[in-house]
């Protein structure tokens, strides 16, 4: 009996020991050192509605930019760049080309209704033509090198191979960086020289209502610049300004103040660019194959009197009153 009592005591003691041993992890969990440690999912949840948030910490290396642990906004910029940007670019650029091709097939080249008069008016002087072609030449290189950044890897890379494509892209990048400056100069000069003739007025509304001589029959009256040209002017000035500001920050990233701002300026630059390309395709079309007699204005600077009377009737009258007509037999001195 004494022996069995000893055994019982021993078993009870062992059971108590086990019970205490089992209780220890439970009490350890009460001082869980990780209870309020942040998890990645908490951070990502906290971001909802504030996509530009970054998780900043403290860092002991000198590069303080490296103190950003995570910046999920990069994923959204990627979605934009590989999604929205491509769609907007394809729709605006290819869409414009299709519309212009269809328009050419349906309407054809818009002719001068009355034949040439043989006498001309000076529409753009040498300096105006210089600043136009400076801007235009730069714009074409900038547009092609810019489109290369977005579409080159789909269109050009498979044709020329990786190393050749990189070489082309490096040259394109330098061309883009340097030709941006004469482009900005050209836009600024055009603004100063042409703004006085581009203030919108009631005449422009009537011009648009009448279809601007492109859609309807005949040409509504217009001063030096008609409504459509004013749209082009203000698009170039405002679009050019937006491209200049956004491009400046992309070119000088250390003034932009962080990656999130660079993403923002990149979005502005990309969207404005493709809209500008689409608009300029229309401008090039009308100024070349689309309309007879229009190219002379920026080619030689001299437009035929009958063309001027049809397209810019009020401007032509003004010029005639000033006696600014060149060439033609009636202006030759009688001998």
């Amino acid at each position, binding site marked *: 009996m004494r022996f069995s009592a000893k055994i019982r005591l021993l078993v009870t003691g062992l059971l108590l020991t086990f019970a205490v041993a089992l209780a220890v*992890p439970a009490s*350890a*969990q009460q001082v*869980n*050192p*990780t*209870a*309020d*440690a*942040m*998890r*990645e*999912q908490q951070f*990502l949840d906290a971001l909802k509605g504030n996509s530009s948030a970054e*998780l*900043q*910490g*403290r*860092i*002991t*290396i000198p*590069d303080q*930019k*490296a*103190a*950003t*642990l*995570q*910046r*999920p*906004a*990069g*994923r959204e*910029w*990627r979605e934009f*760049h*590989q999604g929205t940007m491509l769609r907007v670019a394809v729709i605006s650029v290819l869409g414009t080309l299709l519309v212009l091709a269809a328009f050419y097939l349906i309407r054809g080249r818009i002719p001068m209704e009355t034949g040439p008069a043989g006498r001309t008016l000076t529409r753009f002087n040498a300096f105006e033509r210089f600043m136009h072609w400076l801007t235009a030449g730069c714009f074409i290189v900038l547009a092609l090198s810019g489109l*290369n*950044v*977005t579409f*080159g*890897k789909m269109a050009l*890379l498979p044709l020329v191979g*990786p*190393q050749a*494509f*990189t070489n082309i*892209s*490096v040259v394109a*990048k*330098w061309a883009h*960086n340097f030709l941006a400056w004469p482009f900005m100069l050209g836009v600024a000069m055009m603004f100063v020289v042409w703004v006085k003739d581009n203030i919108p007025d009631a005449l422009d509304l009537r011009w648009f209502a009448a279809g601007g001589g492109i859609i309807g029959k005949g040409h509504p009256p217009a001063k030096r610049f008609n409504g459509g040209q004013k749209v082009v002017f203000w698009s170039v000035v405002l679009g050019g300004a937006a491209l200049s500001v956004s491009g400046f920050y992309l*070119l*000088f*990233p*250390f003034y932009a103040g962080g*990656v999130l701002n*660079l*993403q923002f300026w*990149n979005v502005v630059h990309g969207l404005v660019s493709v809209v500008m390309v689409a608009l300029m395709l229309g401008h090039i079309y009308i100024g070349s194959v689309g309309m007879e007699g229009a190219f002379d204005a920026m080619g030689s600077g001299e437009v035929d009197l009958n063309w001027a009377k049809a397209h810019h009737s009020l401007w032509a009258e003004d010029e005639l009153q000033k006696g600014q007509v060149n060439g033609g037999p009636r202006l030759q001195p009688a001998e």
Partner: protein
Amino acid sequence: MARMKFLCDADRCIECNACVTACKNENEVPWGINRRRVVTINDGKPSERSISMACMHCTDAPCAAVCPVDCFYTTADAVVLHSKDLCIGCGYCFYACPFGAPQYPKVGNFGSRGKMDKCTFCAGGPEVDLSPVEFQKYGSNRLAEGKLPLCAEMCSTKSLLAGDGAIIAQIYKERVVKRGYGSGAWGWQTAYKETVAI
């Protein structure tokens, strides 16, 4: 083939920066570039944690998606590498990366960043394995030698794990079960669209 991943067990990281130093030394990383860094969040609070972060070698990597010259490629081990011969230094990968991994040797304006540099998972680059030119451009190629990245190998508390994602996730899970807590695999949700279920 293994799917290589990094996992930083933030409850073990003591912010000694040995991974940062090991990486710089092993790969002869240029001045101003840190392929790996240790960030301490909630500094000084009870929830303070330090996390060693580098390129996470994302699934469907954003850097590769936005690169205008397609200079990125993913190895059979799912390591995201790039060619410095093809890189034009445009900065797009740097805009897109959620982890701030891509860095540039020059801090000049006017598009003069130089060729992008980032963590290679100690797997070199597109040059011939273990060749001097590979080392000069991309650093060490420990994977070709059958070794894992030095940052994780050097980690004094074995906080930073590198290797097959399935294996390091298992190791982490066992740790969490054993000690009863874990603040999760930082970066996994963003990089791999999955986390370690515990």
